[in-house]
């Protein structure tokens, strides 16, 4: 891919996004002119979208920014870490925040290269315990218990 093609693609995606969001502003509820208060609800977002689109054109033309080289492909560990984060939300819904957090600490630690499950488990229990102490005992927060937590606990 030629130098600067990345900027053109980013600019194209931005303009497309602007067009979609701009079209969406037509779905806003209509308000009588007397209640507009200077600007209608849709006018300011449209103004911002126009500015964003003009800036995207400037980016495509490389005005005020040097052309950018295409970034290297996203490395595998990033995809795995991203997937693990999504998995965390699923596990959280199932077993609750604290057990899910302990599992995440062990799982992500393993992905990051630590192979001692004992060390990972001890640190996971200690950290989730400390966070529970601060956020639940001290700050009085309430966290999701998950489907299983709701079945077994009060």
């Amino acid at each position: 891919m030629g130098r600067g093609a990345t900027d053109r693609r980013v600019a194209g995606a931005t303009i497309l996004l602007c067009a979609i969001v701009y079209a969406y502003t037509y779905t806003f509820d209509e308000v009588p002119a007397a209640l507009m208060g200077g600007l209608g609800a849709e006018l300011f977002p449209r103004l911002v979208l126009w500015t964003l689109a003009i800036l995207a054109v400037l980016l495509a033309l490389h005005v005020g920014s040097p052309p950018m080289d295409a970034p290297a492909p996203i490395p595998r560990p990033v995809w795995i870490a991203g997937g693990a984060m999504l998995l965390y939300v699923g596990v959280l819904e199932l077993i609750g925040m604290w057990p899910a957090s302990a599992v995440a600490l062990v799982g992500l630690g393993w992905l990051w290269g630590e192979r001692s499950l004992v060390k990972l488990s001890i640190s996971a229990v200690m950290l989730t315990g400390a966070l529970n102490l601060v956020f639940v005992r001290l700050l009085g927060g309430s966290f999701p218990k998950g489907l299983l937590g709701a079945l077994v606990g009060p």
Partner: protein
Amino acid sequence: MDAFLAGMAILLDPYMLGVILAGTLLGIIVGALPGISGSTTTALLLPLTVTMTPGAALAFLGSIYCAANFGGSITAILINTPGDPSASATAFDGYPMAKRGEAGKALGISAISSAIGGIFSVFVLIVAAPLLARMAYEFGPPEYFGLAVFGLSMVAMIGGESQVKNLMSACLGVLLATVGLDLTTGVERFTFGVYSLSDGIEFVPVLIGLFAIAEMLEQATQHGVVQDYIRLTAVKLPTLADFRKCAKSIAISSGIGTFIGALPALGATTAAMICYNESKRWSKYKDEFGKGAIEGVAGPEAANNAAVGGAMVPTLALGIPGSTTTAIILAGLIVQGVRPGPHLFTEQPALLYIVFSSMLAANLLYLVLGLGAAKLFARLTLVPAAYLWPAVFVLSMVGAYAPNQSMSDIWTVLIFGVVGFLFRRYGFSPAPLIMGLVLGKMVEESLKQSLLIFDQNWLMFLTRPIVVGLFAVTLIGLFAPFLARAWTRTRKRWRTSPAGDLP
């Protein structure tokens, strides 16, 4: 005076002192963790302030802000990886000093010069912020609109590779600020039927996603990179001769750092870089720079901590953030129901003096802690990535969920984590987006109010001298780099052309 004394009296309140101590300790600890910047530290710890009183929250955030900058220098000196971008210049000479066995001395001068720069800037803040606020007290909506536009235009100078990308990022932030109920008309905008979006996008999960989760994903790309770590045997206090050698550098950097910090959007990193060069320019030992010059540590450290107080001047007096971290602090204040600006000085002066006194105390505390427990803090740089980043992830999730106890905040963190990662990948800085998000409401509201005052006549903005001045500065700021480049090209052409062609 009563408010000043009331503010200072918090230093006698054990609870507030505890909050300041906790903020300072957490600021140093998280700031010293490799890869976690001051802004990430503040974003990560922001949820802890939600249950605090506004005064305690301000004291906590102010202490974190001061201490995280110092914490960042520990990793810069010991592993050549600045814990905070503002400590990048510290690594130039701090790491070479550490390599030749003077890590303790480098950390010692870093603590002392940071504290001097920080305390100096707090005194400037105490004097300058009320003056600026008094000046701004007469501002109406058009002036605020001009000011907010100026603040947003200044974000073009923050981070990232290009002005255009920074401005695009800021526009996206402003657009995100329009999500939710339009207060004037009661129309719902971009809520897509999601009830929790009616109040707008929550700041805390956006900040955590953009800074902490994006950084975590970024670190995943560095998987397997081994850092060179230097053990710290002892922290030696710099000698009187060392201090005398650095005095000029500390004095110059404290002044310049405070001034640069006070300019909207120009923060500690710019201050540290400029002051590194200034320290070199004024030094008698120029050839030592880059090879382990103690002045090369003292100058940037005094500057980046002086910028902290400087950055708080426009943040508190005008409600315009002076840096990325102050934008996060501003978001924290808005969450607390406090809107910084000139009215704060007349309506809640005690709150402001709490900021001043807590920042003063934090600077003194990290000096004591930095000198006394640097060896302990230095061990933080040894925390393996396999434990650090999963912990950051879990803390992010718990911290994002805690304030509103809503699953949608968890999703917001993840979405903005990906946005932040893609931003960095394509050369965009997340800082302007935060500025836009924080200032967006102010821009829209002041524009709407102005148009009501002006009876929809946009040209009436030009009848207000301050607005015209602010627009002029904005335009100059935006176009100056292009004009400078055009001027340089023209001069080059003149030089290369035959003498007869010269005008």
